[in-house]
């Protein structure tokens, strides 16, 4: 059974994890390294259609390591003030998400799925949002609420788009299977 649609769904869930944060004191209940672990596990499946996605493996491993260590340290209340490391890994994650979504959009386009353009647009919006969110802008309350709302909309919209894309891929797989069976029987 073609695992590609499932892989896309998993990526959708990973974006949900990356946007939201559920903390109990200093303990992050659903840490970001889980999201990157999910992404890592989908790369081989996606590589069936887009080989270049395997270039993201090393970056994903690095990000899993970084997020895991940060999560463990913050769970024990240890805060490390090394902002240059944070910036460095932010740059890596920015690239990773951009390239991953580009790869998915390319595959969608080749499979003539309607979500290709939307994925690219949301990819760009997410990149801009992530960049602006780390700039030292002092937001007033209204500005902050609007900004967070925009981020929420982008994340939910991206998730929804990836889910509908995964559904379309599932239908495509079924259709291909039907055609294959019909050809065999004829």
């Amino acid at each position: 059974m073609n695992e590609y649609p499932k892989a896309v769904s998993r990526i959708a869930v990973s974006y949900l994890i990356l946007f939201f944060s559920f903390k109990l004191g200093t303990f992050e209940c659903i840490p970001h390294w889980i999201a990157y672990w999910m992404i890592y596990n989908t790369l081989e499946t996606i590589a069936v259609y887009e080989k270049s996605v395997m270039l993201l493996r090393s970056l994903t491993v690095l990000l899993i390591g970084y997020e895991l260590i940060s999560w463990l340290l913050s769970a024990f209340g240890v805060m490390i003030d090394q902002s240059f490391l944070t910036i460095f890994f932010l740059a890596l994650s920015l690239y990773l998400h951009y390239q991953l979504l580009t790869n998915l959009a390319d595959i969608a386009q080749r499979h003539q799925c309607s979500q290709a353009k939307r994925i690219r647009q949301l990819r760009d919006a997410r990149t801009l949002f992530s960049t602006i969110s780390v700039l030292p802008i002092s937001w007033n309350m209204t500005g902050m609420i609007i900004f967070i709302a925009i981020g929420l909309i982008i994340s939910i919209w991206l998730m929804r788009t990836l889910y509908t894309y995964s559904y379309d891929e599932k239908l495509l797989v079924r259709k291909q299977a039907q055609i294959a069976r019909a050809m065999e029987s004829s």
Partner: protein
Amino acid sequence: MRNIWGFLIQTLEVSLLAILLLILKHLLKDKLSPRWQYGIWSILILSILLPAGLFGTYLIPLLDVFIEAVKTICESHLHSSYTQAYVAVINTSVFPYFTSFPSSITDVLFVIYAAGILSGMIKYLKDYLSLKKLLHKAEPVNERVKKQIGDVAHRYQLSPCKAVVVEGLSSVFVFGIFKPVLVLPQEEIDDKILLHELLHVRYKDSLQNVIWSILKCLHWCNPFLHYVFHTISNDLEALCDQRVLEHIQGEERRDYGRILLAMTNEKYPHAFATTSISNGAGQIKKRIEAITRFKKYPKGMGLVSVCIGILLLPLVLGSGSSVTMIEANTSDFGQQLSLASTRLMTMPNVAGAIDYYTKGLLTNNDAYIMAVMPSSLQSEYLSVLDDLPEVSISYPNEALYRVLNLKETADHVIEGFLVFTNNSNDFITSTYVPIKLTKEIGWKVQQNGKVEQYELDRSAPFSQIRNIHWDAPAYGTYHMELENGETDISVHRTYIVQNETDYFNMGFYSTKPNANAIFERSYQTMKIKYTYTGDDFDYYRIESAMVDKADKDVVRYPTCPQNPCTSIGSDGSIRAYAIDENWDRTIEMYHTSDVHESSSEIEMGLPDIFDYRVRINWETVEEVILDLKEDHYE
């Protein structure tokens, strides 16, 4: 940059940033285009041209502290002209400059460094002029080659340039910045090589090489940065390859690879203000590998490239946290590290500096005192620490301590008092420590005179207005000769520094200093003593009022509706007497005004202008406007 230590900090910061960029480039080498791989070096340019620590932060703060500690250990035995052992090194420029002749080994090293920059620049200039002279004598290319260059330029929509041929030359290169010249060997040249060189001309790569060469001079003694600049130069060539490949198609790309392969055994020219297609066998191999994985990078990669560049900018500006104090350990070097960390701390606010000094006195913490010690006292810090007053408090009713009568006495110099209050059954005793604050990079604090103690009798009426000791030094005293008398006014200004409550210590105030503390409120208390010299009466009904005139067009004086009355109003104080002829002809009254808005400045909006009035038997005998700022009344 005034000394060798400033250069050391600068070159280490640039090196660290270069390492981070190299790691990032390596991670993304097959993911982002050669344009990005070269473009990311623009962040390094910013780092080289901006003084390290310009915004008060460094990539790694401890590195700065470490160098400061090493500097102090070395310089405390030398008598350098360019460096003071106990003054933190702050770079205000990336270019070296001298204030006097060298007088120590570290001064001489700095002179050698500056001489190295100069000789590097002179060498580049000499090479440039020699090559220019040589090429001036070279023969221009023949018509066939000229036509070939013109055809290539026309085909790929580039501008042709002047070309000369040099005998014995092994490779093609471009020379010159503003009027570039294509320098060719005598053999036939492939169109793709010409395309490569014309693209160098189009994108002014010679000028970029000149800029990199000049920046390399600034760090001529850092071998790691030599490697980095070599990498930058190779990235520029790889970018030119990318541009060539974008212009040609199919089999031509393979031909281009073969052309590069043929250059692996050739020597390559590498001179100032030149660019060359050949840059060494090792690099040629890498360039061929890049050609094999060539692709036209998809649209939109520019967006993520720019965003990554923006994210990395804080690395240039120093995103590390500002220096925090290192607790001293028993080793000598540990002590020096702790002292270095205190010297590098900067107090942006007057209140923060005062908080550090005061809590250093209260907790006997030398590091807190050192953090705000003026640089002029650093060399004798041990005797300064020995001479600190001993203070204690037992009456922190409104604050752990109070700051009184802060006044700017000169440009960036503020004087005032720290007041610590102790309570006994009969007296309130306050210890006044005179302080002086001076602005260096941040605010510094030192004791400014003898410590005095003052007592307040708890039983004396009206003696405890806001716990002010009226015999202690005031913010200002004013004497006014008026129409029917004279008045003496003593003004005291009190500042309360923001302080957290330590809930683990029975709700007492925290003794941990806060560098960013501000004044959370302040109040002004005045004692006004009026002596009446006017007409005699059998009977005196006296009213006296002092009203803050700020933002008031109409001043309303509180009145005393009936005899006898004595009252103190909230907006302007009034004291009214009904007295017979045995009055001693003096009136003593008090006025206080509060500012509840916090501020980092000593100017907190305390009122300066007052209306003062005295009425005797319903007749106004005195009415003046007093301006404390101008020390003037009318």
